[in-house]
């Protein structure tokens, strides 16, 4: 084995040689510099590799020929190898990224960089506490200088602030070290730790606590703990992004490792205090980050937050409260290292500090994709390492009874998601404010390569961790593989990509569906079949549609994985994958920036509730695969039930938690809206199905909980319909309608009887068909007219008859009027509710469905009937692929309307024996305990009547005289223009007036207030970071006092 001493030898030696080399040959310095860094990295990788494969033991390296405690010793264990490898990798990549800037500043800067790297390696490797101090100072001095490298005022000021804070930390550290040395007589970390224990009760004990306090305080400053971290923010803000990346990724990691070594000296009493400090920092930094408008500083807040989280994990791990904390910490660290460095690097490439102007990156799909990937990693989306870490963390915390911790950690994570994706939203949709849209961001090749390398590495680690963590990882990987594979086709015509996606979905379905049964079969057929039809509709796309098909495929695949999941982790993995992919799909809409952010924040909050729910359920397996079980498993208790149900209620947009939905559904691209509304909205339904199967009805409080969920479903149905009737925007109307329709499904499921479940699943399919149909038809109309406001349309029946028929069939099915499929859902639902004794809910659902007539009529009237506008007199029918998809859906609706049994019978089989059988078939008649319904007969009677009466009308009035559009009079007035004659705007004003009392958007106002309060708190708190070094010094002292109080509490 190469002794790690060479790390220092190489770094120091080359650092001194560089000026000579540069003098000998111009340009040689750069090569040697990079070679040196590679050499250092190779040593650490060699150790890591050997330790991983078991080729060598932990390395203990002694200096000066003595054994410790008489000499300084280094250690390379697994942890050291991992940290140095990661740090050296990042710094090597960072050096490549920075190479032009560094060489532009001369060899001095490269020397500094080498010292910086060496210092960090030393901090990780050394086992001597004073040596640790020295390496810390080396790292510090090198970084002060690197921060100020550009010699601009900002950088110099930041360097000065950094140096002042560093000096303070080193003063306290030395003070602590010297006292500890006086007491224990050694500087060796391992010996100190063992000797410290023996001092309790002796006279020296009085000195121990202050000494330890000084030491920990110093390291807490180095760890940038709240509120003693203003200087660090200014550093991230002011340094060159490439340097900030290294400080955030590298030295933060080294500091973390140092505190990991120090905490055992401090003793167990400090673990809690450190963990609390860490989580306070995590929450505070992320909260304040909410208000941040500048990229560098935003990343600074995120970095500090991550440090806090890591400190929490390490402290709790050392305390013994987190079983697999090493995995969590390493996952979080590597994730932070690569993703944060990647984002800093991107900041360097764009050169744009204000996040509002990040639209500059939108024209570079590759960089944008990298940004999305880093964002996903930082926010803990699968398959990135932080996802697995956060999952394990929350699981362990719950099983260790640390519920309050989970609340804070998830809250902090939510803030982080909010500001990160706000930024990403600007990048994708923001455009450029200052009108400098002309200049396209261009990275140099080596910078771009480094970013790609970082992303690739992150993905590799993700893949490795995924293989370790999740059962059946191959299957779970399929959606990602599909999406990645599709990326290869990005250069092709969109139609080719669409067809490839369609083929992939069909093939995948063909492969997995035959092997399935029960709920997985139902939902997979639903998601994949529906996905295929919707994919067909997207084939009309002519625009470049970059990234559209991969994300669509990812979403369909993750939905399928969701239905296939057999463990809680698999479920959550697929759930998060679905959230992310659908977020991107929503964000693709032109005006989708804000709705997409809202969607992301609510989805993340919902997902955290789900995660907490899984955690509180302990080891209960949650999933639908192998769903052959009869009855309910009854293995969930009240708390997990509430958490999971709340999480799923967010997804189904239950009233009160729905504020994200209208915007997300409406502002996505038109064909995406169809997919999101008709397919994705059922993910929450699937969640409820799995949840109710697991929970059963036997647990405490189940009656109230189910009835609460039922009421929420009914109220959602009502308000969804009412709001839909008041919309002017066709897509918003359908969005609200979707919210309401899913309410019926939840109501049916919550009834917890056979009919209710059949109703819910039947309605899921039925809703998919008619809502998909309506959204696609509207998509065609919007595509042709270029507007979504219904009152601007009118009379389109003459120009777009095919679309009109689609909408007409769609609304008849939606409204539940016999003889089409919608009625079956309603009939089943009322029977289920009567069986359950939920009469009031049934009446409310009934009323809601009548309100649905209002918006149904409005939709078809305002668009297709009434007066045609001159602008649209010449428009064409919707594109063929859209029409084709619509008519497939119409055929399905007609088939299921004619013979409901071909749909209801399989669904009854899938619902199976879980409940008492209440529904029976006799020929074509479906019997419930209360009533009966013969869909076939209804269809026949209606068709026969219609045919006969039509013939009668044809006989008595065979050839009516066709009249022109304006051949009408009203109140003896001739209409002037179509615009003033088409009655469509504010259509249901009397209704609005009558219901004005309950039409106030209370939920929206409430959530707005929550958002505003959070931002206000952030805006207020961030003023403590005044940029004044003197104030920062005071804050450091205040932090010291707080820490002291905290440690007293912790020690007692």
């Amino acid at each position, binding site marked *: 084995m190469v002794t790690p001493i060479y790390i220092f030898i190489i770094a120091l030696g080359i650092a001194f040689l560089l000026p000579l080399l540069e003098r000998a040959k111009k340009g040689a310095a750069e090569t040697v510099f990079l070679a040196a860094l590679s050499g250092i990295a190779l040593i650490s990788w060699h150790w890591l590799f050997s330790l991983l494969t078991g080729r060598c033991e932990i390395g203990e390296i002694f200096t000066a020929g003595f054994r410790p405690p008489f000499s300084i010793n280094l250690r390379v264990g697994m942890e050291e190898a991992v940290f140095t490898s990661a740090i050296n990798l990042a710094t090597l990549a960072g050096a490549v990224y920075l190479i032009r800037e560094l060489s532009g500043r001369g060899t001095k800067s490269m020397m500094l960089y080498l010292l910086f790297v060496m210092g960090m390696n030393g901090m990780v490797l050394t086992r001597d506490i004073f040596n640790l101090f020295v390496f810390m100072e080396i790292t510090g001095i090198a970084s002060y200088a690197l921060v100020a490298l550009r010699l601009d005022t900002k950088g110099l000021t930041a360097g000065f602030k950094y140096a002042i804070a560093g000096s303070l930390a080193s003063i306290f550290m030395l003070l602590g070290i010297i006292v500890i040395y006086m007491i224990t007589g050694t500087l060796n970390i391992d010996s100190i730790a063992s000797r410290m224990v023996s001092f309790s009760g002796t006279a020296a004990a009085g000195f121990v606590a202050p000494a330890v306090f000084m030491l920990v305080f110093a390291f807490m400053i180095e760890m940038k703990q709240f509120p003693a971290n203003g200087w660090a923010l200014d550093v991230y803000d002011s340094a060159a992004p490439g340097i900030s990346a290294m400080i955030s990724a590298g030295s933060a990691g080294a500091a973390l490792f140092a505190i990991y070594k120090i905490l055992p000296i401090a003793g167990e009493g400090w673990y809690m205090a450190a963990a609390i400090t860490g989580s306070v920092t995590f929450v505070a930094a992320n909260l304040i980050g909410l208000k941040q408008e500048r990229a560098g500083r935003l990343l600074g807040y995120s970095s500090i937050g991550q440090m806090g989280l890591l400190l929490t994990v390490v402290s709790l791990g050392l305390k013994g409260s987190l079983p697999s904390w090493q995995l969590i910490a390493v996952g979080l660290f590597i994730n932070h290292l690569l993703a944060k460095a990647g984002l800093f690097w991107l900041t360097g490439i764009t050169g744009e500090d204000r996040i509002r102007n990040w639209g500059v990156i939108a024209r570079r799909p590759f960089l944008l994709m990298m940004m999305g990937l880093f964002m996903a990693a930082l926010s803990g989306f699968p398959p990135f390492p932080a996802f697995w870490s956060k999952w394990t963390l929350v699981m362990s915390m719950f099983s260790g009874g640390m519920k309050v911790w989970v609340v804070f950690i998830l809250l902090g994570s939510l803030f982080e998601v909010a500001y990160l994706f706000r930024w990403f939203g600007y990048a994708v949709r923001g455009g450029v404010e200052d009108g400098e849209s002309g200049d396209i961001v261009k990275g140099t090749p080596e910078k771009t390569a480094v970013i790609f390398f970082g992303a690739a590495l992150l993905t590799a680690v993700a893949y490795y961790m995924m293989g370790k963590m999740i059962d059946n990882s191959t299957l779970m990987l399929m959606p990602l593989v599909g999406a990645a594979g599709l990326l290869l086709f990005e250069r092709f015509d969109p139609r080719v990509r669409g067809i490839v996606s369609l083929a992939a979905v069909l093939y995948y379905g063909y492969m997995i569906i035959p092997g399935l049964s029960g709920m997985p079969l139902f939902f997979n057929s639903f998601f994949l079949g529906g996905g295929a039809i919707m994919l067909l509709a997207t084939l009309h796309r002519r625009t470049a549609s970059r990234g559209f098909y991969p994300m669509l495929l990812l979403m369909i695949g993750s939905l399928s994985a969701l239905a296939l999941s057999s463990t809680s982790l698999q479920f959550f993995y697929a759930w998060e994958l679905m959230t992310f992919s659908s977020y991107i799909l929503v964000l693709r809409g032109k005006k989708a920036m804000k709705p997409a952010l809202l969607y992301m924040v609510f989805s993340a909050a919902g997902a955290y509730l789900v995660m907490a729910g899984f955690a509180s359920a302990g080891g209960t397996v949650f999933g639908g695969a192998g769903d052959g079980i009869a009855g309910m498993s009854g293995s969930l208790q009240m708390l997990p039930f509430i958490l999971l149900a709340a999480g799923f209620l967010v997804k189904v947009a239950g009233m009160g938690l729905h504020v994200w939905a209208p915007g997300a559904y409406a502002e996505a691209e038109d064909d995406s809206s169809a997919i999101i509304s008709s397919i994705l909205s059922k993910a929450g339904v699937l969640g409820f199905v799995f949840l109710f199967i697991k929970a059963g009805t036997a647990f405490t409080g189940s009656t109230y909980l189910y009835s609460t969920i039922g009421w929420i479903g009914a109220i959602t149905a009502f308000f969804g319909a009412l709001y839909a009737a008041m919309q002017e925007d066709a897509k918003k109307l359908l969005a609200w309608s979707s919210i309401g329709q899913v309410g019926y499904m939840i109501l049916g499921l919550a009834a917890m009887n056979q009919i209710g479940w059949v109703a819910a699943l039947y309605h899921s399919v039925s809703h998919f068909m008619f809502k998909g149909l309506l959204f696609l038809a509207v998509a065609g109309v919007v595509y042709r007219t270029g507007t979504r406001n219904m009152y601007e349309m009118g009379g389109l029946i003459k120009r777009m008859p095919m679309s009109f028929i689609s909408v007409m069939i769609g609304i008849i099915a939606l409204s539940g009027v*016999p003889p089409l499929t919608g009625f079956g859902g309603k009939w089943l639902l009322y029977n289920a509710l009567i069986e359950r*004794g939920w009469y009031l809910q049934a*009446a409310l659902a009934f009323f809601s469905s009548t309100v649905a007539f209002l918006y149904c009529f409005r939709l078809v009237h305002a668009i297709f009937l009434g007066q045609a506008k001159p602008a649209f007199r010449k428009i064409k029918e919707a594109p063929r692929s859209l029409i084709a998809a619509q008519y497939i859906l119409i055929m399905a609706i007609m088939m299921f309307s004619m013979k409901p049994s071909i749909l209801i019978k399989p669904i009854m089989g899938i619902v199976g024996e879980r409940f008492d059988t209440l529904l029976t078939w006799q020929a074509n008649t479906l019997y419930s305990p209360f009533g009966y319904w013969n869909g076939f007969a*209804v269809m026949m009677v209606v068709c026969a009547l219609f045919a006969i009466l039509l013939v009668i009308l044809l006989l008595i009035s065979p050839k009516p005289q066709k009249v022109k559009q304006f051949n009408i009079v009203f109140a003896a007035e001739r209409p002037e223009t179509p615009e003033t004659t088409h009655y469509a705007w504010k259509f249901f004003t009397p209704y609005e007036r009558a219901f004005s009392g309950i039409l106030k958007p209370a939920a929206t106002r409430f959530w707005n207030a929550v958002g505003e309060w959070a931002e206000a708190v952030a805006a207020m708190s961030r003023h403590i970071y005044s940029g004044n070094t003197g104030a920062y010094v005071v804050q450091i002292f205040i932090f010291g006092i707080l820490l002291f109080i905290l440690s007293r509490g912790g020690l007692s």
Partner: protein
Amino acid sequence: MMEVLKQAGYSLATLMVVMNYGLLLVGLVTIIVARVHGRIGPPIWQPYINILKTLSMRTALSHGIMFYLGPVFRIVGGIGLLFFMPVVYGSSWMQNFSFAGDVILVVYFVFFGMLGMALGAAESGHPYSAIGIMRGLAQNTAAELPFALALMALAAQHQTLSITDIVAAQQGGIAHWNMITNPVATLAGMLAFFGMMMHSPFDVHLAPQEIPIGPPTEFHSSYLALMQTNRSIFHAAKLILFMNLFFGGATSIFVMVVKTFALLMVVVFAGVVFPRYRVEQSIRWFIRIPLAVGILAVVISAWK
């Protein structure tokens, strides 16, 4: 097949009975209203004359295919409503196609015609048609709220949704009628009934002469004939529905005529006495007292 044809024949006969009855009712109501106003009024067969008149109109215009089909949808809705209901309890030929579905089917089918005709009228491009439809839809949906509650109260009381079974449960004298056994539900249902019958004060959308707004002013000739025919059928069918639900059904045509006539008179007299509501007024009216009564009805019925 023979069964179906036989049933179709029976139903056709029922339709004839009900249609004529409905037309006569419309005529009678006109007379009654006129007498209250102190006029003589038209003869009782005026509705027949009206239909013949409209049928023999020489002018038939069309604004488009939906305009043409609208009245067909409308009358299919009316006849279908009748066809899915048993008209006379125990009668072998007046059961119609009630085997196809229970009361939920019937109440939902009410909307079939409404929606279809609304589509037709809207295609004319006449703004007043659209306004009339908006008013009708808005008011009707509001009336459905107490009705739904009343229906659920009945379902809770009888534990069935089958109209035949509900009627069966009310046999054996007036004491068994839901009017007596479940008075609150009946009250809620009757309050909704005012709205559903579209009589004054809930007839603002029907385009009575002084406010020439709504589909009836748009349609003419044979279309209007279909709609007028439907109006009588639809009227009668709804009366029959309420008779079945709350007033013990009918065991013979005679009983049916008596009961439905009495029911209609309630509405007519109320309409003569009360002024017409604006749409938002009528909606507000429905979501106050009738809603409260309906909720009370459900609570009482579910309590048992």
